[in-house]
């Protein structure tokens, strides 16, 4: 792989003066033109992680580099924010209701002093995001567009700046089902035609299957399994990934493993493997039979193998 577009190395993000480890020693590399889906439940730290990539959360430890340049504070941040663009879950909240669609796209061009004829750039950006003919949209306001069209405007505004990395936080979660596929196809088309990389934060495993090259599964601030989408979603190794997949209604013939409770409060991190209090292997006695239950309860662990495409952090996989 050539130089990665994004390198996240042993990153920790803490809240409450260190009492909450929202992101706890996470490493992730994203190559050029690669789509990585970061999946997990609320509170697993996935959104905090991508916020830290654009410098919105200070790092307690570790480092983040975009195209080899470290993400820090101060002067480099503006250049970084042109290269790294965000797409949010709720396009309505992300657009200024008093700004026309033209303004919504032109604002970023002005902030980043993008060279070229502004009206042409705006029109091209809208057309490339499927808002054709662009003249029909320029003077409209967000409330005059549908949810899907608004998300296209935001994607157009992001892509107009020529980013190398798109960070998408649940990009289709608030859209109607029939619109979902169109927006995902649009995002994937920018990967294929312009070589942009995408990190998509989502709880939607179907999104990962639809557009992601790799999947990273997060639980309580850690990546617990990462690998090529086909492998992670068709042959998941971590019991948490297996449970997540088992409750996706589209998958038939898989016995549902509904985990009880919710993701624990990260201020009270369980000892050992942080998944062990909800782990089906521990609950069923399987971990006991494998003779690993003491390690599950007492020994923290990292992704294995250290080098490899499909990596997983589970004592049962090691056993």
């Amino acid at each position, binding site marked *: 792989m050539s130089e990665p577009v994004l390198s996240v190395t042993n990153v920790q993000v803490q809240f409450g003066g260190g009492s909450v480890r929202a992101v706890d020693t996470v490493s992730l590399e994203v190559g050029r033109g690669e789509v990585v889906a970061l999946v997990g439940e609320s509170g697993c730290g996935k959104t905090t992680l991508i916020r830290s990539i654009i410098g919105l959360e200070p790092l307690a430890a570790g480092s983040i580099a975009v195209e080899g340049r470290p993400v820090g504070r101060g002067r480099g941040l503006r250049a970084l924010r042109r290269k790294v663009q965000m797409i949010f879950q709720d396009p309505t909240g992300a657009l200024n209701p008093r700004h026309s669609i033209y303004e919504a796209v032109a604002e970023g061009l002005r902030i980043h002093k993008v060279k070229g004829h502004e009206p042409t750039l705006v029109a091209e950006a809208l057309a490339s995001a499927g808002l054709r003919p662009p003249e029909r949209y320029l003077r409209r306001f967000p409330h005059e567009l549908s949810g899907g069209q608004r998300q296209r405007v935001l994607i157009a505004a992001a892509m107009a700046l020529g980013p190398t990395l798109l960070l998408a936080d649940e990009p289709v979660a608030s859209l109607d089902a029939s619109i979902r596929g*169109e927006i995902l196809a649009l995002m994937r088309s920018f990967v294929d035609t312009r070589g942009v990389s995408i990190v998509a934060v989502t709880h939607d495993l179907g999104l990962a299957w639809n557009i992601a090259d790799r999947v990273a599964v997060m639980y309580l601030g850690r990546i617990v399994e990462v690998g090529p989408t086909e492998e992670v979603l068709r042959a998941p190794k971590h019991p948490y990934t297996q449970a997540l997949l088992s409750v996706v209604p589209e998958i038939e013939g898989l016995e549902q493993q509904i985990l009880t409770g919710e993701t624990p409060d990260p201020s009270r991190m369980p000892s050992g493997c942080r998944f062990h209090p909800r782990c089906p292997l521990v609950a069923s006695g399987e971990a006991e039979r494998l003779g690993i239950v003491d390690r599950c309860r007492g020994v923290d662990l990292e992704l294995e193998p250290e080098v490899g495409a499909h990596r997983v952090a589970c004592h049962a996989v090691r056993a």
Partner: protein
Amino acid sequence: MSVLELQDLHVTYRSEGGPVPAVRGVSLSLERGDTVGLAGESGCGKSTIAAAVLRLLPKGTEVSGKVLLDGEDVYAMKPGRLRAVRWTSAAIVFQGALHSLNPVRRVGNQIEEAILLHTAVSPRAARTRTGELLVKVGLPADRAQRYPHQLSGGQRQRVLIALALACDPKVLIADEPTTALDVMVQAQVLALLEELQREQGLSLLFITHDLSVLTTTCERLAVMYAGRIVEQGPGREVFAQPHHPYTRALAAAFPTIGDPASRMNPAGLAGDPPDPSALPSGCPFHVRCAVATAECSSLDVGLRVAAPGRSAACVHVEAAHV
């Protein structure tokens, strides 16, 4: 007799821009212990139906057709009778649990209030019953002392279900009960609804945009588009072998993980859900339909029998199945 029956229901909202026909002739029946799913996108009229069943529509809304609860016409009820029927005959679990609970009152008090208003019991009995209800929906009884903001999204949704069950309704209408929840919590809530339905013989009308949720939960499924049912049949069959091109697109929108056809190939549908105040002519789906023919722009077809137990509102149905 059906516990809930809609007969040719029409609902038209009044707005400054003129009448908005949100529901345009829906007939549907729910038998005791049945689960019926109602699927569709924003603006298709599914939530309007939920509100129409208990006469919760804004003043001035035009309603025609019939809503029968246990054979009794809801729109012919006197106010006192209507108040008695709400909660005790039918109750609704709304979407957005945060907004449906009073933020400045303990959740237990909110459940007690519903019990005291609708049944003749002592405050003490109401408190005991509240604790039982919370346990039934999988929450510790002491959660009654909490305020809504002290609970997680999943816990709040459980409180809303407890609230809806407070007066032992026969019919539970769940309007997007799992939409804002995490997948695992969603699975927990769905399992809870199924269990309640089995144990108490509840009849469930399950409304959602997520077709895939319905196929595993519902025996029967109705898909709505532009204020009408465009396809209905057994849940799994409708999802696996849709007859209406809209259902086909909706089913494809939820990829089957592991299916090579959807890998790196998200399936969508061009265009947007129609604006109920400006519906296209003919079949309202024709502007987005991949298989529309010339006649579709002028011919509006009703539901036709597509197979035993299956029907769909599409001109192609007859050609393919008779």
